[in-house]
């Protein structure tokens, strides 16, 4: 298949920048990384990019295609090439470019290291003297975070980091959650305390670009929410972001609706709020500062109050309250509702090949094979 690529070339020494266009012949199954290899081998040996494993586990080949961070080795080119689309390939965002598609990962690793990404055991030796056994459910809480391959696709798109480069960022925070949630770690509270700093969890702007881009399903934004929940569960609530979040809980259980006008003093403190008086008056003129008295109370709000009392006593506080929903959301990510069995999923017409399971007779013909007819319909199959 003919694949066209526009690649942003960049030389950091000379500062030269150029959008170079390439037209190559690639196999139908080619990924973006395969295409870059062809460019480098046959067209232009000076093109610079990173790669290693070619199978979505080393995290080296993060880059942008049409402005969105992807792993080059994960991105098949057949469909867009068939549609005549010529994608623009560029280096990841939020990191300095060294050359072409290669970024300086230094700031990334600095933040990664800042969260102490290693186990700090809370014991000298395992209780039984041999090994430390952890129930599966305790590890489920950090399963997603443990999938991170440090590729930087989330960091590339982080809107808060664009505005403040010092923000710890989605990758380092997801990594932090991987250890905060590890039952073997003995420094949870100290870790959370560190993560509640100026450039920590409360600087996340909830743009959800990290969840959208992560090629491994880590969902860094959800990890940050878990850190927030666990911080407050441990009584670490000094940050304005934590106070802001707590006010919503207070509002819900007292009036049902957000007590909007009191939110500013409850978040920033009375002194800061007074400094905002001029701004607040301008808004008040427009009816944007609803008077807190009489409060806007939801009908049957006592139900919301009693629900609060119930869940308070049921113990799913901190990150456990978020983890409990992950099973259902993971099903959604994999495109099924939970109604189907695994066998039924593998028998779907568009299913991947069923993997060989030891001791099982292999099927005579795989349920879904690539054929010429499908090629004619523009479907690359799997």
């Amino acid at each position: 298949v003919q694949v066209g690529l526009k690649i942003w070339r960049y030389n950091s020494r000379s500062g030269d920048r150029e959008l170079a266009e390439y037209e190559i012949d690639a196999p139908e199954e080619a990924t973006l990384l395969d295409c870059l290899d062809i460019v480098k081998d046959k067209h232009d040996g000076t093109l610079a990019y990173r790669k290693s494993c070619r199978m979505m586990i080393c995290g080296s080949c993060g880059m942008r295609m049409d402005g969105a961070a992807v792993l080059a080795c994960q991105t098949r080119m057949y469909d867009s090439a068939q549609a005549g689309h010529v994608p623009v390939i560029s280096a990841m965002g939020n990191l300095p470019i060294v050359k072409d598609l290669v970024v300086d990962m230094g700031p990334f690793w600095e933040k990664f290291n800042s969260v102490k990404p290693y186990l700090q055991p809370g014991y000298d030796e395992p209780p039984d003297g041999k090994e430390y056994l952890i129930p599966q459910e305790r590890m489920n809480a950090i399963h997603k975070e443990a999938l991170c391959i440090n590729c930087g696709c989330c960091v590339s798109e982080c809107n808060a980091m664009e505005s403040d480069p010092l923000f710890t960022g989605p990758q380092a925070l997801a990594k932090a959650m991987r250890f905060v949630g590890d039952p073997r770690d003995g420094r949870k509270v100290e870790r959370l305390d560190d993560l509640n700093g100026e450039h920590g969890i409360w600087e996340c702007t909830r743009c959800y670009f990290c969840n959208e881009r992560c090629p491994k399903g880590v969902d860094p934004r959800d990890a940050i929410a878990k850190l927030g929940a666990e911080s407050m569960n441990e009584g670490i609530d000094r940050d304005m972001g934590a106070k802001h979040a707590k006010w919503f809980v207070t509002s819900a259980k007292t009036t049902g609706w957000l007590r909007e006008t009191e939110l500013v003093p409850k978040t920033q403190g009375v002194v800061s709020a007074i400094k905002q008086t001029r701004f607040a008056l301008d808004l008040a003129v427009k009816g944007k500062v609803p008077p807190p008295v009489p409060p806007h109370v939801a009908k049957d709000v006592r139900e919301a109050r009693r629900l609060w009392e119930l869940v308070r006593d049921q113990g799913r506080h901190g990150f456990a309250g978020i983890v409990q929903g992950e099973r259902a959301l993971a099903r959604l990510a994999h495109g099924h509702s939970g109604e189907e069995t695994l066998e039924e999923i593998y028998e779907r017409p568009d299913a991947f090949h069923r993997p060989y399971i030891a001791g099982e007779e292999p099927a005579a013909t795989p349920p879904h094979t690539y054929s010429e007819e499908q090629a004619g319909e523009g479907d690359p199959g799997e």
Partner: protein
Amino acid sequence: MTASAVTAKRVAYYKGCLASLSAKELDFATQALAPKVGLELVELESVTCCGAGDIHEAEPDYYLHLNARILAYAAAEGVDTLLTVCNVCTLNLRQANYMLVGDSDLRARVNENLVAVGVPAYERDVDVRHLLWEIADGDGYERLKTAAHRGLKGLKIAPFYGCQILRPSKLHGFEDPDRPWSLERIIEACGGEAIDYPAKIKCCGFPIIQAREETALGELIQPIEQAVEAGADAMVTPCPLCHLSLDAWQSKLKKATGRDFALPILHLSQLVGVAAGIAESELKFKRHVVSVKPVLDKIQV
């Protein structure tokens, strides 16, 4: 009730906190617009805040229960759709809905708690849909094309989506989060010209505008600056939180940069409302911080 209400789609209407309070103009405009686009709004009374992502972060189990309660009261109205007018409500409710619908054990536990406090159990599934999706496609879009007869007369409108109606796309699934089309389609159906600019899918900074104002303003300036430079007469957004930062915090951008962008920001319901000839008194432009008058003058409402 107009004649069109006879065949209107009956939906449960969840207006959320802002449209109940500081962004009342959004509620007025939506109520005025609904019959024109074939929606019969059943207002939910016994509902609370969705938590806005904050309760999800502070007390996630309580977040799930509050949202289950909203879903349960919507289902109790016998409707299939819970209509939202806010990105943040949309994401919070859809996320809770998927958690419950995709996990029968979790749903059973939450339902037990709901019933214990006198709320009907959430049994029959409802779908949470933003007004944007209702009028950008299908029957709603057909009605919109007819209703928006007053037209925006070529006015240049910058679509601003905001984050939580696009991402995470696995929870929304309505349109490509990198190449959305719904606002553009609506702007064009209303006779306006949709302008394109890179920050239309990015963050307005609102969630951290109180806790990290500088970082938030660094985000906020991008869509406003780009839209103004692309020649926008106004900006439209489907989210009242985006609206609040884009509209009310423009004065802080002026203070920080010395530039007075004076870009009027319209709620989605107001934009369509203007095009559909709904009176200014119902759309409540006087509640905006940045004056909408230049826009109205141009199309002589």
